[in-house]
């Protein structure tokens, strides 16, 4: 199986330097050396016009004419846009318009649903994720995911975080990796004295941060979040948003949210999905607008976007 492109900065030196310097160092203090694309990944978007991309940013995903169907019926259709590196991209839209369906194509989680099929292409650093020789397991090693409902494993907090590095066979001191991930997940101080306790004994907000820390432990390049805060109180939600800001300079984040304020607060770019009824009466989702969050919320190009973000529909 072909190895999915390694993220440039995960080549051994910076990581080794980081562990040597101790895990206390906050991610914000690390050198932003990851801007350089790895070899062979530079022409990432041949032929794809990433709309309104900021000139200095590079796409981590280039999605082109992506259609996802369940049992032959399209759920999202003809989605094309580029998701930029080291920025937070929000996916918004009414229920059932295919946001989850879309985000799950970005790390091939839809492969787990037998009836789902994908047309079009998703390029990750220029590499087609759906090429026949790509192993979905390799894809998911680089692209982590956090789900709507916190889903800790029925194990200790420590083992939850260590699970990813263990199955990936990551080298290094496991205690250090766990501590680093929990610190990056803004959870370390709360759990450092009870790492051996079962994760099911944590609060919902802590569980969700544990799931984020768990995803961070494998040092992913991208984190996909499908309504990560929808089951949480405002304080836990705020913590997770702060966390996203801190993570932003090392990982690209894609977040699905129903909370307009949240999308406006945290994201740099926003894609608006809506349900379209085609001639045959079949409903499917489409992206009608993708732009800087500021623009989408203050001066949207499409009237459906405007109606949605101002709360007049859906």
């Amino acid at each position: 199986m072909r190895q999915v492109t390694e993220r440039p900065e995960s080549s051994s030196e910076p990581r080794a330097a980081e562990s040597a310097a101790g895990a206390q160092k906050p991610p914000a203090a690390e050198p932003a050396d990851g801007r350089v694309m790895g070899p062979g990944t530079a022409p990432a978007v041949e032929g794809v016009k990433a709309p309104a991309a900021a000139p200095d940013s590079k796409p981590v995903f280039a999605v082109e004419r992506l259609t996802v169907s369940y049992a032959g019926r399209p759920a999202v259709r003809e989605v094309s846009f580029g998701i930029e590196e080291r920025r937070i991209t929000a996916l918004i839209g009414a229920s059932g318009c295919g946001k989850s369906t879309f985000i799950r194509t970005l790390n091939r989680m839809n492969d787990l649903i037998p009836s789902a099929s994908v047309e079009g292409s998703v390029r990750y650093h220029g590499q087609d994720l759906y090429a026949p020789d790509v192993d979905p397991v390799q894809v998911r090693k680089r692209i982590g995911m956090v789900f709507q409902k916190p889903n800790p494993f029925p194990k200790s907090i420590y083992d939850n975080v260590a699970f990813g590095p263990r199955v990936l066979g990551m080298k290094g001191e496991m205690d250090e990796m766990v501590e680093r991930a929990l610190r990056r997940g803004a959870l370390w101080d709360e759990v450092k004295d009870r790492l051996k306790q079962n994760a099911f004994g944590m609060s919902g907000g802590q569980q969700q941060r544990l799931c984020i820390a768990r995803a961070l432990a494998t040092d992913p390049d991208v984190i996909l979040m499908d309504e990560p805060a929808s089951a949480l109180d405002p304080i836990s939600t705020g913590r997770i948003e702060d966390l996203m800001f801190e993570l932003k300079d090392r990982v690209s984040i894609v977040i699905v949210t129903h909370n307009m304020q949240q999308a406006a607060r945290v994201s740099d770019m926003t894609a608006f999905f809506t349900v379209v009824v085609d001639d045959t009466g079949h409903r499917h989702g489409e992206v009608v607008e993708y732009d800087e969050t500021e623009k989408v919320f203050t001066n949207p190009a499409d009237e459906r976007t405007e109606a949605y973000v101002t709360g007049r529909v859906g």
Partner: protein
Amino acid sequence: MSVAEVPVARAVVRGASRGARVREIIFPASLMLCIAFAMLTLVVLLLDVAVDGLPVLSWNFLTSFPSQVFPERSGIQSALVGTLLLMVVCAVFIVPVGTASAIYLEEYADGNRWWNRLIEVNIQNLAAVPSIVYGILGLAFLVRGPLELGRVVLAGALTLGLLVLPVVIIVGREAIRAVPNSIREGSMALGATLWQTIWKQILPGALPGIATGIILALSRAIGETAPLIVVGAAAFARFNPNDLTSDPFSALPIQILAWIQDPQEEFRTLAAGAILVLLILLLFMNAGAIYLRNRYEQKW
């Protein structure tokens, strides 16, 4: 709300509650009656066996070989050893095969394919096939026929294994299905392979359920008589089988049956003693299953 409405509302409430109250009493009372009937029958049965069997129980009874001449020197050693051997070999057979089948059907098999559906329906049906049919199968295919094992422990244990395998698979599948999909997704999203996900997340989560199913299956196998008769277990074995593949063997149900059919009263009391031993074994196995379930069951 106006004042005039109040009495009306109250009347309605009172009228409804009278009939309901009677039903509230009659329904649980009749349920209690059913339980009482079942329990009473069971208690009478157990008492009857205990009264006959308890005086027989002794260390000698457990360690002597059965005699067809002297009831007072007769015991169940060969039957007990045979039953224990059958259980061990049966477990060695059904644990891996049953668990693997359950994993395959739950995690790998595409339920839309006709052959997988056929397998599924057949397993359901096999669970309901009378045990004597398994005995005939064992006789035709294991004792004689292609495998030609002879009337040995291995043949008996495999026959019992085949008999309870459908139950093990069905219970195992339920235990695997009880592991929520979010755990699968969480594990796969971290880059674990399906194999790693099954081995490190799903199996540990399903293990208490699978183990409970296996114990319950074994406690069904331990009391089976018909298939063992057909496969040719011996009634009055004067020695224990030296190995699994060459010597004749006995088992508790076979020994019990032989004694019950004896015209001599003294031998029939021996049957009650052997039944008690079998019941105690069963009790321990079921207690083990309950303990496992309560101690290790995962609440999601």
